[in-house]
Structure formats: C-alpha cells, structure tokens
C-alpha cells in the first residue's frame, strides 16, 4: 500500500513548487511536480513597443533578471534580422557569464550544500585535521587552521544558543548524512567564503549593466555602454581592469574551491551517481556568440534522446530552425484551457483552475515538449551535449572531474553515471569552470576589439509594419530559456516565455510522459519518509526556481514547509 507525501511550502501566496510522491517499501513509486501559481505575465506585453519588452521581462523573476532581459532583446533582434556589434556581444557575454557564476556559486553553497553537509556534526571536527585535508585537496589559500577554527566557532555559538536561526530547517542527524566532521567543517567554511565570491561576480554584472538587480545597459540591437578608453564614467580601461581583477578572484574560487568540493561530495556519496536520472532526453542551445551575425559560439548546443549520447544532434545557431519548429506546449495536465499542443508563437494562456488532481490537471506549469518529448535542461544537458560533440572545453573539465573524484575517493566515474543527482551537481561545477575560463577569453576579446579602434555598440532597429516573429534564446544557469515574440504594426502581438524550470518542472503530457523532476524521483530510496531529505537532494540538484512570481510578504508565521504523509 503506497503512502502519499506532499511537500508544499505553504509560506507565500503564490509561486511555489509542490512535490507529491507516493512511497512504497521506503522508495518513491510515483511523483508529481506542480507549481501553485498562475503567472500570465506575458499578457502584459501585448500592445507594447517591442524595444521596451526587455524592461518588463527582466521583472519576471528576482533571481534571473538579466537572463530574461537578454532573451527578450535577442527575440526582437531575431524578428528584425538585426545584427549586434561585436563589442555588444562581448559585453553581453561577460554579463551572462558573471551572472551565471554568481548563480552557480550561490546554488551550490547557500542553497543545496546543506542537503549533504550536516552542520551539527561540525563541533566535533578537529580544525587542524580539517585544514590538512583542505590543503591536500587544493591550492586554495583559505583552508588554514585559523579559518576552520573561526567557522567552527560560529557553529558552536549557534548550537550553544539553542536558536538555530538559518539552520533551523535542516534534517540534521538524518541517516542519509554521511560526511565526517572534518569534511562537514571544510565544506561549511567554504559555504561562508562563497558569499564573498558570489558578490564579486555580481559586481561585474553591476559594473557592466550599470545596476543590479535590474541591468540598464541593454538595447535592441546592442548595448548602451559608451566606450571611452580614457574616460572614467564610460567603459574605459580603468573599469575593464577592475572587472578583470574581480573575474580573476571568482575564477580562482570556482576552480580551487567549488569544483573541488563538488568532487569531494561526489566521492563520498557514490550511491547518488545511481539515483535521480529520470528523463534522459537533453537539450541545450548554443550561447556566447562570437560574431555579429551569431554564426559561431563558445558554448555548443543540440539535443540527445533516450540517453543515446553517441547520437547527439547539434544546433547550428541559437535560434536553430529545428528548435523553432519542434517546441510546443501541452496543457493536458496544466490549469489552462486548450486542446492540442501549440507552438509558443500561437501560445495561449487562458486559466482553467480545477484544483490538484494527479490524474487530471495539477499544475500551473505547462508541459513544454521538443518534438513531442519531455527534455531535461540545465548544466547536465549542456555538459553531455558538449562532451558528446567532443567540445574541447567541456571535455577538459569533464575529464578533470573524473580524475579528481578518482583521486579523492577511488571512484571511477563514467559519463553514463552523470545521468543522476550527483551528475547534475558535477555538471554545474564543470560548467562553472568552463564559464570562468571563458570570462577571461571574452574580456580579452572585448579589450582587443576596442584597441583596434572599434567603439560601436549598437545597431538601431527599424520596426516593420508587417507581421514578423522571432525567438530569442539564452542558455541560462538553469538551462534553455526562450522568448517568443510576434510583432505587428510595430507593437507586440503575442509574447511567450518558455523558461528552464518549466522544461524541468513540467507536468505529464497528453501521452502521460512524466516531466524531468517527476521522473527523476522514481525509485529514490527514503530512509525516513517523514523527513524526505532524499527528495530534496534530487529536486535541489536541478536548481529549481519558481520565483517568476509574486511574493507579498506573509507575516502569519506559516513558514514551515508542509510535509504531509497521507
């Protein structure tokens, strides 16, 4: 007899991920992912000037502001067949990279590390042994005994006060927590240090975008940064040098700390290379364009079906003809009216709320499909697709991961094992290393191009009266993002955003195929069903973000996620 467990953060009025799992013999036998809020934000864009759309779309979400701005200008540029000057491409690329590095660091340390690290074991650690362990793993200078001792003292103070504060929500002492006190302390001290480095990455976004959280420097056709090598207010050598220093710091943290910690966690939880696979269809779009026309990219795209890595197909461009044709959205199990799947350009968002019913409609998220199949998106998709195509940078860091996990834990990782919860974490660290290296490259490309005397940053758009449509994509931290715009009479006629978390949090479709979160949870063993830490580990490995939503503060105190065992 199966028990159903609902994990539903009931804290806020909307915008939540809810997970329902059925548990049989202490393993997940069925799963449903749902989002509890209707957004319908896209309707606001109808009738507006397409050149303004990015200002609105970057307000979709408080976490992924820049990515929605970028996809939006790209969609209009695609519709207008407008080229973007090289300087503007490099500046945009640097912003996207810096944002992604910030996002990946925050995700691993602040948002998911404590699924694996037991904070309450830290007081038992020996700081000297911890420092020695840290120094044996990495050249990082922040692994001294003093640093470890300071981190441990912070935890001891909190534990002694009896007020766990930000740590009140952890499943401490759970049987699935298995790191030694020293490894827990090492990771935790990096958790504290990570704050500073994610902030440095964000400073790069602010310096180029002139402001965070909402950047101000975009334009359809380029960017608004004035380039003046000797000036101080415009983008000059002073500012570029400061950006370089910040990028160097972040690069060191990513390569010497984040990457190493992920390898260490992987080596010590090897069973999680066998849990959490689910949908083995993967998709990524090419990104970091290297020229004005968008014919060459630093990150490859494509798709893989049914885990068949040998049969990877590449996308040639960021808005590849195959991608444009193959994406549809299915509303069979989503709270919307409608029949057969529609392409985003003709997409509709007419709500039809019926209440949660796992057999019928149960989510506000539509089910995006690629050629009628669910796709997993995100760093794992990016890495598998790059690796399968022999992409040099992807192969370099994937092989480094395999070597590092072997050297730490004597565990032989094969690419096949990456279809897993740990695979998603490893892939995110691989991608962060790649992006850190590419940040250096694109900084140099920008500096060299300016040195050649090219100061141009913008091509003015001309809006036609006839109807035209475009798609703008971005391979964002959580995966493939696409904005779809239809323009008529110089105004927006229709606008749809297909965001990474809707690919991954997708409900079932008309054929009954589960979405990636749902499928990844099947067969997961649960040591204590009433404390479903294992479910959190897998869901968090996707880096879910449903924050594209309203968030009026709820002071009522209903802040505890509800874990209901039915």
């Amino acid at each position, binding site marked *: 007899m199966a028990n159903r467990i609902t994990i539903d953060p009931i804290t806020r009025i909307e915008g939540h991920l809810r997970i329902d799992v059925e548990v049989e013999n202490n393993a997940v036998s069925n799963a449903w992912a749902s989002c509890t809020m209707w957004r319908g934000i896209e309707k606001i864009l109808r009738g507006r000037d397409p050149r303004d759309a990015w200002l609105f779309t970057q307000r*979709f979400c*408080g976490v992924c502001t820049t990515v929605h701005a970028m996809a939006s200008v790209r969609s209009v540029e695609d519709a207008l067949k407008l080229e973007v000057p090289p300087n503007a491409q490099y500046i945009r690329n640097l912003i996207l990279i810096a944002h992604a590095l910030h996002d990946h660091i925050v995700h691993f340390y602040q948002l998911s590390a404590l699924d694996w690290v037991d904070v309450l074991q830290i007081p038992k650690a020996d700081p000297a042994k911890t420092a020695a362990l840290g120094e044996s793993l990495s050249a990082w200078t922040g692994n001294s005994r003093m640093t470890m001792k300071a981190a441990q003292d912070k935890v001891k103070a909190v534990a002694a006060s009896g007020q766990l*504060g930000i740590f009140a929500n952890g*499943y401490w002492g759970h049987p699935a927590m298995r790191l030694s006190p020293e490894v827990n302390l090492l990771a935790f001290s990096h958790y504290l240090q990570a704050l500073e480095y994610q902030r440095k990455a964000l400073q790069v976004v602010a310096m180029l975008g002139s402001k965070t959280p909402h950047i101000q420097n975009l*334009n359809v056709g380029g960017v608004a940064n004035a380039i003046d090598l000797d000036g101080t207010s415009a983008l000059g050598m002073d500012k570029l040098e400061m950006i370089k220093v910040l990028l160097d710091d972040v690069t060191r943290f990513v390569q010497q700390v984040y990457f190493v910690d992920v390898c260490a966690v992987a080596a010590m939880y090897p069973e999680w290379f066998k849990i959490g696979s689910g949908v083995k269809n993967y998709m990524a779009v090419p990104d970091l364009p290297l020229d004005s026309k968008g014919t060459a990219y630093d990150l490859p795209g494509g798709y893989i079906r049914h885990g068949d890595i040998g049969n990877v197909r590449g996308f040639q461009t960021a808005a590849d003809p195959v991608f444009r044709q193959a994406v549809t959205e299915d509303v069979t199990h989503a709270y919307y009216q409608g029949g057969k799947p529609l392409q985003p350009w003709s997409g509709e968002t007419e709500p039809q709320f019926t209440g949660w019913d796992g057999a019928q409609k149960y989510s506000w998220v539509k089910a995006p499909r690629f050629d009628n199949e669910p796709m997993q998106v995100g760093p794992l998709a990016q890495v598998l697709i790059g690796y399968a195509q022999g992409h040099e940078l992807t192969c370099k860091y994937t092989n480094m991961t395999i070597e590092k996990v072997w050297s730490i834990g004597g565990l032989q990782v094969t690419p096949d094992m990456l279809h897993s919860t740990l695979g998603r974490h490893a892939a995110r660290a691989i991608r962060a290393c790649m992006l850190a290296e590419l940040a250096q490259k694109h900084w140099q490309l920008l500096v060299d191009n300016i040195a050649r005397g090219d100061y141009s940053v913008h091509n003015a758009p001309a809006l036609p009266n006839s109807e035209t449509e475009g798609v703008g994509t971005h391979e964002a931290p959580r995966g493939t993002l696409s904005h779809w715009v239809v323009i008529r009479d110089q105004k927006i006629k229709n606008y749809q955003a297909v965001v990474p978390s809707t690919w991954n949090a997708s409900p079932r479709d008309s054929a009954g195929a589960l979405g990636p979160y749902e499928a990844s949870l099947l067969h997961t063993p649960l040591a204590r069903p009433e404390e479903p830490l294992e479910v959190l580990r897998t869901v*968090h490995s996707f880096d879910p973000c449903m924050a594209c939503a309203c968030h009026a503060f709820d*002071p009522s105190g209903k802040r505890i*996620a509800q874990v209901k065992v039915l």
Partner: protein
Amino acid sequence: MKRILVAGIGSVLLGDDGVGPYLVRMLQANYVFDEGVEIEDLGTPALDLIDHIAGLDALIVVDAVANGAAPGTITLYRKQDLTRCTPAVRLDPHSPALADALWAAEFYGGCPQEVLLVGVSGESYEGGCALSKPVQGSVERAIQEVLRELDRLGIGFIRRFEESETQIWWESPLAVAR
C-alpha cells in the same frame, strides 16, 4: 554617517505587488535625503537580499503584505516580528526571502540593528501594471511612515521645490526605453 537603505520590494508586473517599487520612485522624485541614505527598487530579490542589507545601520522595506487586512491598510513590522518564525525547508530555494535574508545576515554578521517593514495590504496580485485604488490611495500614508522612521533615526530630508520627473515606466503604455 549612518548607512540606511530604503528598499521597495515587489513585482511591478503583478498589480499591488508593485507598491514597493512605485513608492521608492515617488520618494526619489519628491525628496532629497542626507548622505548615506540609498533609495532602491530591488524588485523581487531572493537570498541576494543579504548583499543589499549587510552592514547597514538601518533598513526600511516597503512591500505588499498578505495579512488579511483591508486593501490599503498599512501595518508596521519590526525585526522581531519578521524573524519570529524560523525558516522553512525549501523546495524552491530561490523563493523571495525577507525573513530568511535577515536570519542569514544575523548569522554571517552585519544584520542591521533597525529594521522596519512598511507593509501595504494589497487587493489584487493578478498580472497587470497598475495599483488598485485602495493601494494607490495608501501610497502617501506609506511615504509618511518611511519619513517618520527616517526622522526617528535622525536622518534629515527636504521636499524638493519642484517635483522631478517620476518614472513609473511600467505604467506608461509605449516607448519608455529611449
């Protein structure tokens, strides 16, 4: 010099949730403040809110609240009201997080001593870029609450002789980016 942030929080695309960003623009257009005071529209931040609040002497947040009071009601919350409940297990760890950011800043160090949330009860959070009538009608009162708090903190401000242009760009129908 005291470091103080007045932050408007909320989504300008979701009706009354936009009251925070709306209000900070009104403040910017109509008042001049002592040095050390930043007035910011932070949109819908998640834990990155920590970066904005760490090291401040005082934080004043304006946000919509879902407290069941009549639309347009203003309720003031202090730090202890906001951190009364401990953080939740989070499925979606990016969910916006005022209380969580305060908890985190408390732990990392640098949490402001003085925190005030000026909460405006909303009527509608449906997609749309306009405030409801009751919330629109409460904006001036909410501004006065912010000013009263600044005054209490010993911060000087004057009303501008001439209102500078208020840029509520999301309410403008066309061509705002140029």
